[in-house]
């Protein structure tokens, strides 16, 4: 597997200049995009298609700071990465009791319908979890500097990997619960409106 950082000729680090990344992405796209190889033979066309697909995937992963961290962890562990987040959802340990309550409230809303009071409670809970999710994301992104200096100094990175994974797992878990809450509140209609069958 070609390393996404290598694709762009960048060091395997988490801190990254997005403007520079975009510039290199455009340059590589101009070189490889199938539009510019339409008159070439079949082999060259296939090669351009593959190269272009790799550049696009690499850019999509590296431009997003969280996807970048997940990718680096996967590289560290020698795994192949999939499109979807590889982190297994796990509730943050300090929120276990609260999560049980949320699940209970969700069950209640499902079986007994949503009263105004219950809706208010779910909404407050969702806002709290949203804030927590953002906090986890910021913590992951801010871990970049520490990671990069560990790379430079050759210090052991396993503790950092573990910490990243923990936060990413918490984030994945929170996302699911937030989605469930939105659904129970009937506020997820917009995301699906375009996909209604006629």
């Amino acid at each position, binding site marked *: 597997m070609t390393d996404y950082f290598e694709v762009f000729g960048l060091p395997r680090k988490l801190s990254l200049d997005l403007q520079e990344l975009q510039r290199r992405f*455009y340059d590589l*796209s*101009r070189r490889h*995009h*199938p*539009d*510019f190889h*339409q*008159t070439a033979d079949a082999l060259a066309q296939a090669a351009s*298609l*593959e190269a*272009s*697909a*790799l550049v*696009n*995937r690499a*850019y*999509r992963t590296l431009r997003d700071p969280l996807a970048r961290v997940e990718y680096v962890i996967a590289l560290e562990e020698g795994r*192949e990465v*999939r*499109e*979807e987040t590889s982190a297994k959802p796990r509730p943050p340990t300090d929120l276990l009791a609260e999560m049980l309550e949320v699940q209970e409230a969700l069950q209640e809303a499902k079986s007994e319908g949503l009263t105004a009071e219950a809706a208010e409670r779910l909404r407050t809970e969702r806002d709290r979890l949203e804030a927590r999710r953002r906090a986890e994301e910021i913590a992951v992104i801010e871990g970049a500097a520490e990671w990069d200096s560990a790379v430079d100094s050759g210090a052991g990175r396993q503790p950092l990997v573990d910490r990243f994974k923990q936060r990413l797992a918490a984030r994945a878990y929170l996302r699911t619960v937030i989605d469930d809450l939105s659904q129970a509140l009937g506020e997820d*209609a*917009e*995301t*699906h*409106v*375009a*996909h209604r*069958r*006629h």
Partner: protein
Amino acid sequence: MSRIVGIDLGTTNSLVAHVDAAGIPRVIPDAEGRRLLPSVVAYTPAGIVVGEAARRQLARNPARTVYSVKRFMGRGGEDVREEARHVPFEIVPSDEVVRIRVGDREVTPPEVSAQILRTLKEQAEAYFGEPVDKAVITVPAYFNDAQRQATKDASRIAGLEALRIVNEPTAASLAYGLQKLAQGLIAVYDLGGGTFDISILRVKDGVFEVLATSGNTHLGGDDFDRAVVGWLLADIKAVHGEDLSSDPEAVQELRLGAEAAKCRLSSEERTTLTIPFERFTYRREITQTELERLIAPLADQTLGPCRLALKDADLTPDQVDKIVLVGGSTRVPLVRRRVEELFGKTPHSQLNPDEVVALGAAVQAHILAGGITDMLLLDVTPLSLGIETLGGIVSVLISRNTTIPTMAKEYFTTSVDGQTAVDMHVLQGERELAKDNRSLARFDLSGIDPMPAGMPKIEVTFLIDANGMLQVQAREQRTGKAASIEVKPTYGLSEAQVAQMVEDSFTHAEADVNARLLIETRTEAETVMNHVRRALAQGGHLVSVEERSLITEAVDALRAVEGGSDRDAIRERTTELNRATEPLAQLMMDTALREAVTSRRADDILKRP
């Protein structure tokens, strides 16, 4: 490389364009100088008629005239059941690809579209004086894989190689970009006859990067007209006590009337619709406010996809630098207001919204031919792609709004000892359960060497190419052997079916250009004679005896040549008949029908007595 044209294959109208020697994209007109080809195909007993001539005989021949066929492309019989209730031609019930019955034959939507494409191809060939066999064809950005494949099939049947399927809003952005009319963050709002797209792009240094796209492939001007027709039918019932809803010819008259009234109401406060029926003449004044009340719920349906695209692009409405309007339905003032309210900015339409997509397709064709090297288009796939896993859950392999080309790999194994085949179900859509998404195809991976269960490791590569279309490859990792894949498209034509249709198109008599043109000219002559007959019956008393006999003479003269094969003679005498009828048409307009004619041609209003 030979010439490549750009084609906008629209729900209502289709166009062909090219980039001229000076590097300017231009629409290629037909011999008559017309730039828009109505996307209407009539299967008359004499042969196939395409375009304006077909549209003009629609109310006379509704069961054999196919329009808005784009709404049926790449769909199954089951999911067009609702749509089928609104069209006068017959949709044959089927679990597979949609079939349309016209007279004694059945045709599929790609075959109907191929007729339109072939007409455009011939139009371009007549213009250049040389064969044209390559094209860039546009589709709605929100078209799924099956709808794109159906378009590509249509192209092949028409004898055109579709070098690229490009998204309509993106094509429009290329046309704007070429003329340096767009820079920064652009939203392209494209509301056509049958489809709606919203695309958000970043245009920078000649790179057109689509950030997100969304839409609805069954929402457009057709639906506006339908809402108006429903209202008119109810009004006729209340005023005249007649229920015309099951009279297909009357419904078509009303539909064409509603469409014309809608267009007039884009620039006028009020308009009067006048339609002479057999037993009474229906007249109705419609105001802009009334029209807006009818179509507001439809216009509002475009806002959800807009918000979703903005969200996916991680932008707020005010961050968008420029909003570009594309598609005829964006002329509706209510639509413009809604767009302006959402983005907080006045939208633009410097380039003709009916032509800009075709012009952009021509630009893309020019890029592929190597004529432009400083513009690069990076488009996205509109829908997530996934495979069905245990319990009917979808596992997403490629998310929506991923830049294309793109690829994803997935590994499969066997569950039984000695198993030599594995099947997988590929879907498109955003829902969790397979049954709620669009089934694209089932793939049978076969030729796996017999091994204990779980031993084979089959790597399957899903690749979405620059057309937004899926290619699948499979390889058994242990042996390195490519597994063979049999694709069973859920709603598409099989390779063998398309090949057969391509062959048929060569053998059918109507493939001959001259034969087709002759049929078209005859059909037009019949339409005009039909109008004149009604006009005489309805208003013959308004003109002098001399003028009446002039008209009858012109009719006789036309009738004498109409059955023959001298196309020029038929055309000449049709024109003469039109001219002889002019005073009568003028008088009729001045009297009973004055209000109805503001933007319609004289012979258009001389309908049934």
